[in-house]
């Protein structure tokens, strides 16, 4: 298990990670999502022992990570801009990783390279961005570590490859309890791969829960209320956001579905309909609640 307690990191005057408390349990795909500058990469770099925390601790299976070889042997870190030796081939990289990761599975590496149709003896600098990501993931999976840290690794992977990777993860999770931790701001990429998400915002963690649970706890309601009735009068409804188009209201509400439907029925609206939210919509809603105006960024 990876555990962060009051984890803090500052870059000069900027607090990149602000007293984060989180637990990442083994055996699931953990998605770390957040806005740009939320602290995802910083969190992962601290988890990988690259950065030394300014405050708090981060442990892997109870061991401090920074400058701890034993703890570091438990994970493989793929950074957002993974480094490959200049003029190196995937085979060269494998040779290096075999030195530092004693459990590196050479045969599996060859197998996966063939499966992904990647030439082991071709120079990596001639690969496309997506192919480089594939090489990184293959190296990471074959390193034989308990954890795999992927920072924006799925950017640039096409859906087919994403599914292929997901199946590899699923296989490794089942066979040797691999725990992939994937940081991304692209919610659509995580939606179909993660079991659990941690939502980071402005250096703090907003929530950390199972994806299914999260999806079930936030809903969108489209409705036309009775004449003269306002959304604020919906008793027992925790409304996070209200949009109006004439009399048609779109409400983003928190709570379980049965309770939301019960409140709507009680209010006797002209019309209502509950719509499931995508992970992206959940993310926008949660961040808006804490004052993050996503529209300002988009427009």
């Amino acid at each position: 298990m990876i555990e962060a307690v009051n984890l803090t990191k500052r870059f000069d005057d900027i607090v990149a990670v602000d007293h984060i408390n989180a637990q990442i349990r083994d055996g699931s795909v953990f998605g770390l999502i957040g806005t740009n500058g939320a602290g995802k990469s910083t969190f992962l770099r601290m988890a990988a022992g690259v950065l030394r925390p300014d405050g708090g601790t981060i442990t892997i299976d109870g061991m401090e990570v920074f400058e701890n070889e034993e703890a570091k042997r438990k994970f493989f870190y793929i950074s957002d801009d993974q480094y490959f030796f200049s003029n190196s081939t995937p085979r060269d990289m494998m040779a290096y990783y075999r030195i530092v990761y004693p459990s590196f599975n050479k045969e599996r590496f060859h197998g996966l390279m063939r499966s992904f149709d990647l030439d082991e003896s071709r120079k990596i600098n001639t690969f496309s961005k997506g192919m480089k990501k594939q090489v990184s993931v293959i190296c990471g999976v074959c390193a034989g570590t308990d954890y795999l840290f992927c920072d924006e690794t799925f950017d640039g992977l096409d859906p087919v490859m994403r599914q292929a990777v997901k199946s590899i993860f699923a296989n490794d999770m089942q066979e040797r309890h691999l725990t992939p931790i994937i940081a991304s701001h692209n919610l659509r990429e995580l939606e179909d791969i993660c079991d659990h998400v941690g939502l980071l915002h402005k250096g703090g963690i907003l929530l950390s829960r199972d994806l299914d649970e999260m999806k079930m706890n936030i809903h969108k309601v489209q409705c036309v209320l009775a004449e003269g009735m306002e959304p604020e009068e919906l008793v027992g409804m925790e409304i996070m956001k209200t949009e109006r188009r004439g009399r048609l209201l779109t409400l983003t509400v928190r709570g379980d579905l049965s309770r939301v439907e019960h409140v709507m029925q009680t209010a006797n609206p002209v019309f209502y309909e509950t719509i499931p939210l995508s992970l992206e919509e959940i993310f926008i809603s949660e961040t808006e609640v804490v004052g993050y105006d996503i529209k300002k960024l988009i427009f």
Partner: protein
Amino acid sequence: MTSRNLFFKLMREDLKRRIWAVALLSLGFFLFYPVVAAFTAGEIKEYMDHAKGVASYETGLVRWLSFNCGMTVFFMMLSSLICGLSSFSFLNSKSKVDFYHGIPVRREKLFAVNFLDGILILTVPYGICQVLAVLVGISNGANGMRLWQVALAAYGLHITYFILMYATVVVAAMMTGHLVIGFLGAVVFASYMPMAVGILVGYFSSFFKTYASYLPGIFSERILMYGIRMSPAAEYIYQLGIRNGQQYQVPVSMAVPVLVAWVVSLCLAVLACVLYRKRPSEAAGKAMAFSVSCPVIRILLTILSAMGLGLFFYVVRSSMGWGIFGIVFGGGICHCVVEIIYHFDFRKLFSHKLQLVCCLAVSVLIMMVFRFDLLGYDRYLPKAGQIREASVNVDSLADWVSYGYTQQYPDGHYEWVDEYSLRENVMKNMKYHDTENLLALASAGIESLEENDSFGSYVDSWSVADSNVVWSTVEICYTLNSGRKVSRIYHMPISSERVQPIIWRLYENEDYQKGVFPLLSLTADQVSSVRFRGEYAKDDSKKQEICMDTLSEQEKAQFLETYQREFQAMTVERMENEAPVGLIRFCKPADDEAMDWWERQEALGDRAEEWYRKNGRYGSWARNDLWDRDFYPVYPSFTETIRLLEDQGVSCGGYLDGLDVRAVRVELDDSFVRGYQEYIGNMDPEFFDEEYEELRPEIRFHIRDKEKVSELRQVLVSRALCYYNPFYRAEELKVCLMAWEPESGEDLDKSYEDGEEGNWNVSVPVSFPEGRVPGYIWERE
């Protein structure tokens, strides 16, 4: 075992990544050693004598392979930068840092791997190429043993200083997050201390008139000696400099500096490792890895730059205004450049205005302290009770004394070696205890300084109104009761009414004499012969010399004791009126051996030893130098010494008697004009000037009248002998005896053909004793 395997595997992998550096240095060393060794071997064929060609080739190759090869030093400096910066260049890239710091390898291990690889990248190709060069040399007939010795010693020494510089570059790389800034950091580490010391010494020498960097106990002496070497490159060059040309001579032990270099390298390596452990990974790409070092480096560089440019402008214009301009300009520019480097942003030029202002204020304050001598450096005068002893050197009093010895070199030839200068000897050996006179001398120096200050500029002997006054440099080194040495240098009129008694008292003091004249410390058992020069001879000094090498031990002891006693008893008052009648030398066995050797070689001619045949012209210079050293004056009042000489059949007092003098030449100059002015009394200055202008074209005239010549010969004294008496009161008028001396083997009776000026071939400089210039000289009759 696993860990050790991992270490070596990582080293191998790292070397694979840096194969470009291995290739670059290998190529460089290959061209530099084996190729040069083979290329220069072609010179052997150019010699008619193959053995000579091989010897010349071997000498050249030894110079090339040795520690004294400047090109190797340059190569090592460049290589230390390449290896040091490339070893840890990964720290400057975020992606590389993420990679290397994300793998399960501790930083210490990574450091050791990269650090050692950086050393191996140079040492292995260098070693292989040295070996190849030696083999090429041997295959061409050079002495293998000699080449192996030189190459091995050079390899050890160059590697030592390479590692020292490399470790410093690595420290610079650890403190910075950018390759270019790392390079600049290495340059700063290599040059800051030498520059700081240079500027500090510049302040001392520009603002303090009593400062001389070469004197012991001077504030900056230690800084000069050690501070300037607090840069690996400067230490490397320093060691090279002091051993320049020593590959053929008795080697100076380098054990201590090499040991120091290794210890410092080790300390720097540990420091670099600690810095690496502390270094934040997020420093990649930033100018400075540690924010705490930013202000320190900025302040140090700004103050140095401000003080350096301030000094430059002050020295050029001698104006405080320009000095302050230099401080503001230099400090401001440096501060801004550092800020740009730190932030990569022009808008941050003045983001630390207060620091800039403080740096400039400190620099101005330092300049003020020096300019107005606020610490009283030039006025320093210890209390009598504080002084244990002192060394005093008055340049003009003993510039004729030799401080050295005769040495035989491994090739068999002899030379005189100047072990010390007069100053060095005095500072090393003198223990002057007459505190009262010492302080009087120092006070006179300070007073003279203040008088000069009142003129608004420094006054030297050439610009003073009264040119009859003799000015001299006086150096005093106090040894205080605490053991501390403090030195000051003064420029003062030593023949002025006030200073003259002090100088006389100093000269007659036994402590002073023992410190200045090595002869007074000589013992009879060290003497093998006594030589005397009492007659002038042209060119060949041997002609005029009488060597008493058959004296018994008792006679030698008597000679030495008598001369020492009379020399010490000689008062300045007597010296003022006595010109020496001859010169005496108490030779040591090595001196006699050397002179015998030279005479033997001259007699052997073509069969002489190799060194003598090879160095004909240089050889004669070395021989003459050996022959003319270590002589002391014999005065007419040294009656006992003269009697001992006469007992040995040596007559004194006829130094110029052997000359066939045909005329006396008088040359006019300022001294003549002054003398003329005194002679004619209170002449109207305007008229005098006109008279002088008329005289000026006729600057030289000859007195040929035999009677006058004969009369003048009775009065004139040898200028060569007077050189040994600093107090002798002679007229400054330039006079020469024009004589004819037949060349060796020439018919003595043959009349010399009259030339344009007269029938002489020798001019012997002589002087008139003070006040004894005949009137017709002034009238030019």
